[in-house]
């Protein structure tokens, strides 16, 4: 298989409800990515686009066809990926495979979403669709409720008193907000302290408002090309060193592993093996902090901290820039927001910018050479891992 490089990235700001369409948001991100790549729309051979809920947010299905048309990529094959919050990561992994295989040389991948435009009530209903509609939704399951169930289970399993776990969770959120404040692309750009997290309204016990990422509108795009082509286009190619992906069914069927998400451990192992790397080699990780508890669970399954120990590690600054591994220096989903279809591409955007040394100095991970993205759709329905490394 050929080596595959990211040669250009683009992203809109992730925001609250706004008036641009999914097609428009993606077109903006895509044109920025193409411009960075020194490529034109006519050079794109395929568009692989993540979009989870466009049907509900604006009555738009098949957004990938309209996006390809809008940017002048005439008649190219265009696919849509629906993997909830992992949609764009799925798309990027597929793009990697198509270029690695030699079938394509230049693929545009990414995602777009208008989750904030939907409003809380409809967003809560539609995000619940990633759970089992026959055996979970009738109970009133919602996306935060899934992770709330995991939070109480985590407290019990690792014997961490709930109020202590909530303090650890609040520390995770506060760190995300701290970096988000420094990120012009984030939805939430203000300091929110541990105390403010613990005083915010309860959403699903024990998760409070600021334990939960906000919905967002936004888009992000990446251009993937073969190694040979990359050398003609940029002096700073970011290579995809490893990928992994796995699926799960409903929450109860994961009973042997909960609160761990088994699919993540499978996907991460694939990516580490492919890259020939270990957790210790990761300088940065943009992981799936849909909820503060989700960060603790993720960091452990990705191999950064022992099971049950990540909360303590966070409080000790080990997940900070300058710690053991810089986790979510972008602000993560918690501060950036979660525009489901775009989230995974937003993570790749961040890692690429960090590896190139192009982010705001106060949140730049100095000398970063290797980064990881971790994205979870639903309750583990789709889990994607990507490892990226500097090609210079």
């Amino acid at each position, binding site marked *: 298989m050929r080596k595959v490089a990211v040669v250009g990235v683009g992203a809109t700001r992730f925001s609250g409800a706004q008036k641009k369409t999914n097609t428009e948001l993606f077109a903006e991100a895509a044109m920025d990515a193409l411009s960075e790549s020194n490529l034109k729309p006519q050079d794109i051979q395929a568009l692989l686009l993540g979009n989870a809920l466009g049907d509900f947010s604006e009555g738009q299905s098949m957004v990938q066809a309209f996006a390809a048309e809008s940017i002048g990529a005439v008649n190219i094959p265009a696919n849509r990926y629906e993997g909830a919050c992992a949609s764009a990561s799925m798309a990027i992994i597929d793009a990697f495979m198509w270029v690695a295989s030699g079938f394509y040389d230049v693929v545009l991948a990414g995602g777009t979403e208008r989750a904030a435009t939907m409003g809380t009530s409809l967003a809560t*209903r539609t995000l619940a669709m990633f759970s089992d509609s026959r055996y979970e939704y009738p109970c*009133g399951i919602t996306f935060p409720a899934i992770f709330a169930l995991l939070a*109480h289970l985590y407290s*019990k399993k690792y014997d961490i008193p709930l109020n202590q776990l909530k303090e650890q969770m609040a520390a995770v959120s506060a760190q995300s907000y701290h970096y988000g404040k420094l990120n012009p692309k984030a939805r939430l750009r203000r300091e929110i302290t541990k105390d403010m997290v613990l005083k915010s309204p309860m959403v699903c016990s024990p998760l409070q408002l600021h334990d939960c990422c906000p919905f967002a509108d936004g888009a992000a795009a990446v251009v993937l090309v073969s190694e040979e082509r990359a050398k003609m286009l940029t002096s700073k190619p970011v290579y995809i060193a490893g990928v992994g992906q796995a699926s799960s069914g409903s929450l*109860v069927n994961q009973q042997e592993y909960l609160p761990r998400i088994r699919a993540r451990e499978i996907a991460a192992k694939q990516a580490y093996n492919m890259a020939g790397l270990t957790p210790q080699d990761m300088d940065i990780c943009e992981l799936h902090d849909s909820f503060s508890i989700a960060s603790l669970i993720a960091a452990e399954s990705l191999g950064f901290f022992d099971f049950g120990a990540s909360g303590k590690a966070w409080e000790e600054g080990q997940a900070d820039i300058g710690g053991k591994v810089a986790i979510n220096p972008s602000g993560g989903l918690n501060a950036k927001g979660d525009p489901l279809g775009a989230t995974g591409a937003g993570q790749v955007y961040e890692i690429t910018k960090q590896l190139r040394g192009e982010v705001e100095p106060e949140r730049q991970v100095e000398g970063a050479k290797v980064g990881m993205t971790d994205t979870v759709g639903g309750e583990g329905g789709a889990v994607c891992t990507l490892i990226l490394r500097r090609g210079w």
Partner: protein
Amino acid sequence: MEHKLTFKDYNEALKQNRLLGLRCQACGAITVPPRMVCGKCASPDMDVIELKGKGEIQTFTTVYVAPEGRQGEVPYIIVLVELDAGPWMMGNLTGIDLGQANMELIGKRVIMSHQVFAGDKYSAGDVARPVFSLQD
């Protein structure tokens, strides 16, 4: 290939307070809710059995923010219960004050009834779910 137990039949039984599951002929494992094949060994050869719906609470949450159309239900409690037969089930918990919805619930024994979600425009009809209450 036919399902040994469809969602339709499972749903209709649950509306009668009967919890149906599948016992594998190859490995003996119990699979519930129903699937095409055994959850443990993937054999399609399974017998339909009736389960008791009794078990122990593994985790819980009280939901305060409702999905569209269900505002009248909040706050409600969701639990994961480990049935005595082994598998975990998701359901609601009733019969307690909200103030009792705390970590003390974990490990408590429950018995099963049901409630029907009437459905909305996205749900392809009504769907029953287990509703648990503390056994004591």
